[in-house]
């Protein structure tokens, strides 16, 4: 594309099918303890 550069090609919608295993880290355990930050967590299935 000439006008648009897309940074990611994986759609969140695709994770509806195979996501939800629940093995990932609980977000508050990583660093925050006072704020909810989930978007930066890593998927265990990767």
């Amino acid at each position, binding site marked *: *594309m*000439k*006008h*648009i*550069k*897309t*940074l*990611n090609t*994986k*759609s*969140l*919608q695709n*994770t*509806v099918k*195979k*996501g*939800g295993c*629940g*093995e*990932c*880290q*609980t*977000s*508050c*355990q*990583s*660093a*925050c*303890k*006072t*704020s*909810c*930050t*989930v*978007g*930066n*967590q*890593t*998927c*265990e299935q*990767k």
Partner: protein
Amino acid sequence: MIHQYINNDIPIVLDVNSGSVHVVDQLVYDAIARMDEGKSLDETIDELKSTYGPDEIREAWEECQTLKEQGMLFTEDVYEKAIEHFTDRPTVVKALCLHIAHDCNLACRYCFAEEGEYHGRRALMSFEVGKKALDFLIANSGSRRNLEVDFFGGEPTMNWQVVKDLVAYGRSQEEAHNKKFRFTLTTNGVLLNDEIMEFANKECANVVMSVDGRKEVHDFMRPFRNGKGSYDLIMPKFKKFADSRNQTNYYVRGTFTHYNLDFAKDVLSLADMGFKQISIEPVVAPPEADYAIREEDVPIICEQYDLLAKEMIRREKEGNGFNFFHFMIDLTGGPCVYKRLSGCGSGTEYLAVTPWGDLYPCHQFVGNEKFLLGNVDEGVVRTDIVDTFKHCNVYAKEDCKKCFSRFYCSGGCAANAYNFTGSINGAYEIGCKLQRKRIECALMIKAALAEE
């Protein structure tokens, strides 16, 4: 739903429901806004003809149409329909925050735990209570293999032998139950020594070292009970600790308040000292506290995030980058939508345990009797409270439905929402504004680095 913005001169379009991030030129940026308003190609050509030729507008329009067809632009929210089924899911407990000590050797001004005591009495967790907590976790974790246990306080190193004994007990149970414990330690560093570091490096998947940044900022907010600052004592130890973990699997974590709104300097001060994993977060405080973040502080804080983002890009390009927790975003393999909907898991997957074995939805609720869920002997008794937390998600919050950041913060911190609005389904507005800014900066950093 899309969100478009320009940061650091980079026009960015986020497709909220697919999570697609598009770096666009000014033409697409202008055209897409009209597409979003429901305007036709002809109307758009008409409106933009003084700036762009009709052929190039047509070309840009077609690129947008292609992305729409590929499910990467103006995608529908397909999750809301599934939410009812999702909220009725059976949940398991997979993480505990163990309050190893309700006592502290510092007297930080902003401590939500009131110098470690959590509106209650000073107490240390016994091995017996801790053991029951681990047994409770194993018994209530269903088929989840990875279990997380954070040694928290107060200051957990004030009860270090119990920490060591609990790690040994946890490890002894792993094989029989097919579980894997991930222990983490949060410490203020005062009692940190070689033995603790060595133990933590062997047993702890993550450690959180509490430090606020510049010496004067740290010492003002994190003094000993006699008023003396703690920076000079802890900093050399934290540096050694971080290096001994190969600058990974840890965070130096600090809090900024109304008194250091120029907190980018604190982040950079830590980076200048060689730390690579940094988290500096806004204080959560009752609005009447002198150090609380106020509405009028928000533009200043946003400016600081911009400054920090630009400096991080510069350092990254120089080969001297570092991670800032709140700007971390995984565009290739981030969490699935279920994780994004369920948020931090407080009150359902994640519980806090007091020194005497009481269970609360998370460490932030400890001491508020209204949220007492049960204890390690009887388990969770107040399933009605657990249900409230289970149904707390972005679709239960009116403010989140319109917010572009909802799949990144998952509706935000329940404790913040409760403290500011009286309901875990409320929205802590200042927190939301800062969260949105952080997401914008995080995406911009990705865009800027992708330009290379």
